């Protein structure tokens, strides 16, 4: 029996829930909501995420919005300053994996060990362990707007501490957890958690403090079109909006196909607007969009190729005139990047973002328009089906849709995902489905996918199956979009033995 509903949490209930959340770790007591609202109110515009995005948008620029975090507070301050010095106005705040899984005692140990060893033993900043007072020092250390990253288990507590510390954005992306961060949670539990953060942001909003939510959607772990990802982003935006969130930032995952990426950049904010308006959230703003090097392809290991991939992605982002751009670093395939790698990587990306945006170059062609209309048709079909399944309630619909495989994506971590869909690239490098699972994609569009896949089958003389899907998954790291059967790792294809 589904209990969750698309409905704002009652204020008293919410305040009661907060007590539980804040009692999870001693630093919870540092959070005083009224004082936090006051603190947020006094922040300069350069620390308000939506204001920064709006300004960047007006100026016609694309700024970097990287990822990074390190446990020791002095190091973190140095890191955010060095990012800010590079001209980066949107400052990421990656928390470590123990924190994200609410294993705060392990995070504590990792933090202490890190301090003792003088080097990081955690893969991010343990924000809860550091608490509000310490974290404010980081926020105040540079002139940028902060957005912390977490996952489901710690989402509520991380949000509480982060906003009280002066951070002004945070993902509230429950499909992200299903795709990549949470193995066992049910969709309902995920929505529950997201509603809490939405309600918290809504509370701030009711006091005039606008905090932005970035929606990541179902993390796309493989070579597939972004339709499910975009549809699930919009569901996340709707769930957040209902709780009072007033500012959402769409994310467009750049996959390497220029036509498909630019098509997605065009269609994503339009569809956000459409469904937000349709479901009564016309007052929710979209201050800007972020292009992300996120489809989770393995990254090239060689430095040159890694730079190639980073700069290329930034170029496409700039051609698409997105407001912010997330790229990885040249160390992505190796390990947590060094400070130098961060700087060199972002300098490369920044170089091209600035050079391309200056040109106000308009880019359009038949392929882009085609991808745009295909994505639009797919996302619309999926969302309409979800609403239908929920009988108008998007929360209920989302739960039923995952159950039914109406929302589905491959290689997800979550055990409730059907995992019946799969994709490969077509001859020009666009991502197409080879297995549709139960996705409610219109028949003529399925046929389009099949035709494109058949074209490649003809040219390469091999069946486009699971193994090709994995070949394609590795392709970018090997220097192309189309996978070859003989990449070094063989992709688990049955050998001769």
């Amino acid at each position: 029996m589904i209990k969750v509903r698309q409905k704002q949490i009652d204020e008293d209930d919410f305040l009661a829930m907060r007590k539980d959340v804040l009692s999870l770790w001693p630093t919870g007591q540092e959070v005083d909501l009224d004082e936090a609202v006051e603190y947020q109110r006094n922040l300069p515009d350069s620390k308000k995420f939506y204001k920064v995005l709006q300004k960047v948008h007006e100026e016609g620029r694309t700024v970097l919005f990287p990822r990074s975090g390190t446990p020791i507070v002095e190091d973190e301050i140095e890191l955010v300053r060095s990012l800010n010095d590079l001209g980066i106005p949107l400052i990421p705040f990656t928390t470590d994996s123990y924190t994200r899984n609410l294993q705060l005692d392990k995070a504590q140990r990792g933090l202490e060990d890190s301090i003792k060893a003088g080097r990081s033993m955690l893969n991010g900043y343990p924000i809860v362990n550091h608490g509000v007072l310490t974290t404010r020092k980081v926020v105040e250390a540079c002139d940028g707007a902060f957005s912390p990253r977490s996952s489901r288990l710690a989402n509520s507590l991380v949000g509480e501490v982060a906003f009280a510390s002066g951070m002004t954005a945070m993902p509230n992306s429950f499909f992200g957890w299903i795709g990549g961060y949470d193995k066992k949670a049910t969709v309902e539990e995920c929505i529950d958690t997201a509603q809490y953060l939405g309600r918290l942001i809504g509370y701030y909003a009711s006091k005039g403090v606008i905090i932005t939510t970035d929606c990541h959607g179902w993390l796309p772990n493989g070579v597939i079109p972004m339709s499910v990802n975009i549809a699930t982003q919009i569901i996340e935006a709707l769930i957040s909006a209902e709780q009072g969130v007033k500012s959402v930032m769409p994310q467009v995952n750049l996959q390497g196909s220029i036509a498909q990426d630019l098509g997605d950049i065009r269609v994503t904010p339009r569809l956000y607007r459409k469904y937000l308006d349709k479901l009564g959230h016309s007052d929710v703003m979209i201050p800007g969009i972020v292009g992300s090097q996120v489809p989770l392809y393995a990254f090239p290991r060689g430095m040159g190729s890694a730079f190639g991939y980073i700069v290329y992605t930034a170029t496409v982002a700039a051609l698409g005139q997105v407001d912010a751009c997330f790229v990885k670093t040249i160390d992505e395939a190796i390990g947590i990047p060094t400070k130098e790698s961060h700087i060199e990587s972002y300098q490369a990306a920044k170089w091209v973002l600035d050079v391309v945006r200056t040109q106000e170059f308009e880019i359009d062609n038949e392929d882009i328009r085609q991808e745009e209309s295909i994505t639009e048709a797919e996302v619309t079909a999926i969302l309409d089906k979800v609403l239908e399944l929920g009988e108008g309630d998007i929360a209920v619909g989302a739960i039923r849709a995952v159950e039914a495989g109406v929302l589905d994506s491959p290689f997800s971590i979550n055990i409730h995902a059907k995992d019946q869909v799969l994709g490969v690239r077509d001859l020009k490098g666009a991502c197409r489905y080879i297995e549709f699972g139960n996705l409610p994609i219109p028949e003529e569009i399925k046929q389009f996918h099949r035709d494109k896949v058949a074209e490649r089958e003809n040219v390469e003389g091999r069946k486009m199956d699971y193994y090709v899907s994995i070949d394609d998954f590795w392709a970018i790291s090997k220097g192309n979009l189309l996978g070859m059967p003989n990449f070094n790792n063989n992709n688990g294809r049955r050998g001769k033995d």
Partner: protein
Amino acid sequence: MKAKPTIITGTVGVDAHVIGTKIVSRALRDAGYAVVELGAQTPPEEFIKVAQETDADAMLMSSLYGMAEMDLQGFKEKCIEAGLEEVLLYIGGILGVSRHNFQDDEKRFKEMGFDRVYPPESDIQLAIQDLRGDLMSKRKFANLVMES
């Protein structure tokens, strides 16, 4: 003697990187092994418990997030305590944080009791060959003619 060797797979600790272990699991199945796929974020204790329950022959653990060393402190000892000293322990993925040498990882994990340690992006077919050899030399599978 069992018909097929039983292999346990999964990522250890709270590591969320499930793609690799899914591919590893499918490759093992394709190669004719019985695979118990624990998926991502599997605590070390769960590996041990399931190995006992399924009378496993090997564990092929993955870890990419850089904290495997912390997660697996004393793991081999716990395996021995649990009567699993004969179970082969393989691990692969990205075993350290930041730029570092695989040779150091290998040494460390071997000292921790792992039989084989694989560098990032290893060819899983080669690992399956290793596995076959190791299982045969343990003479648990005197004549291991797998399907592949």
